[in-house]
């Protein structure tokens, strides 16, 4: 069975797409943020794989092609950004300072918690890039001598959390300006948060897209400084 599924590259793709569609359907039907399509589909696939004793490798051998599309898709985020370029120029100061504050808050809070939990230097630098996009995060973790697989886990969990909780977090802290919402979501939870911001509105989506590049690059620069603290 696993042999067949491993060789069928469509298998991983079809259950990924269909489970996500089921997630979208449930979200539409129940209109509750608990029904997050991404979370539903991830949970469902995990259950299916466990239930039918399918290896993750058999699933991933096909599903990985979906992941390959991430680079062209991220590039396409330039489209909403282009459409909101005037807004970006007009609010440049708020955007730049907001993202910088967010990146400092990210590195600073990881530092404080690492001290609190008594993390080793390696564990600390592994978590430093947790809020930025995977492709940049992997590079930082490697460069600073972190455990790359754990960095990737932390980045993905952060992203899923942002995707689920973004709207709630914005309402708790009374963040109502669409620009500020987009920046908040993107800076904390990279492309996965951006996917959610995109559904909230054009401005939110564009601002969140911008942070993937900006927060990523700022983190590259500042993480090397923070790395020496522990």
């Amino acid at each position, binding site marked *: 069975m696993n042999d067949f599924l491993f060789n069928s590259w469509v298998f991983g793709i079809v259950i990924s797409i269909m489970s996500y569609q089921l997630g979208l359907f449930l979200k539409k039907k129940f209109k509750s943020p608990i029904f997050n399509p991404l979370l539903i589909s991830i949970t469902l*696939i995990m259950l299916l794989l466990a239930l039918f004793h399918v290896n993750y490798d058999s699933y991933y051998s096909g599903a990985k092609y979906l992941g390959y599309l991430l680079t062209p898709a991220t590039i396409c985020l330039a489209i909403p950004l282009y459409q909101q370029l005037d807004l970006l120029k007009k609010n440049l100061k708020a955007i730049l300072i907001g993202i910088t504050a967010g990146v400092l808050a990210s590195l600073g809070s990881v530092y404080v918690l690492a001290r609190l939990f008594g993390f080793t230097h390696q564990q600390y630098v592994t978590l430093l890039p947790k809020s930025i996009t995977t492709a940049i995060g992997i*590079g930082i973790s490697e460069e600073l001598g972190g455990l790359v697989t754990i960095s990737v886990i932390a980045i993905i969990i952060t992203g899923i959390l942002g995707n689920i909780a973004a709207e709630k977090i914005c309402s708790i802290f009374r963040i109502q300006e669409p620009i*500020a919402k987009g920046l908040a979501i993107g800076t904390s939870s990279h492309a996965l948060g951006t996917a959610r911001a995109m559904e909230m509105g054009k401005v939110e989506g564009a601002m969140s897209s911008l942070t993937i590049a900006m927060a990523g690059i700022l983190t590259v620069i500042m993480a090397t400084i923070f790395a020496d603290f522990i």
Partner: protein
Amino acid sequence: MKSLHQLSIIFAITFLAEIIKYFVPLPIPSSIYGMLLLLIALQTDWIPLAKIKDTGNFFIEIMPIMFIPASVGLLVSFNELEGIFIPVIITIIITTFIVSAVTGVVSQWIIRFERRHSR
């Protein structure tokens, strides 16, 4: 043929971005170079928006699906967190809240401050 044309533009930019990534020794992924390239191309009207919009928006719409394979991979990589699972999860949750709050509150404050003073 419209979709095919749009698709070929998107993949051509992706490839160009990968070439840049190959030659520039910085820890920046090709997607960031590609984003910048596309933004410049749109801004200079070298690629008109209409020539890329439909397929581009389709890619953005289905983006969450692209994260599913790696996310399901958490299932097999969770044991890597043995011993530090709880502290790592707590760190992730707290920092995500803090980063969102700080970014949002700071930028919102500046936006509203500037709006008041421009009147």
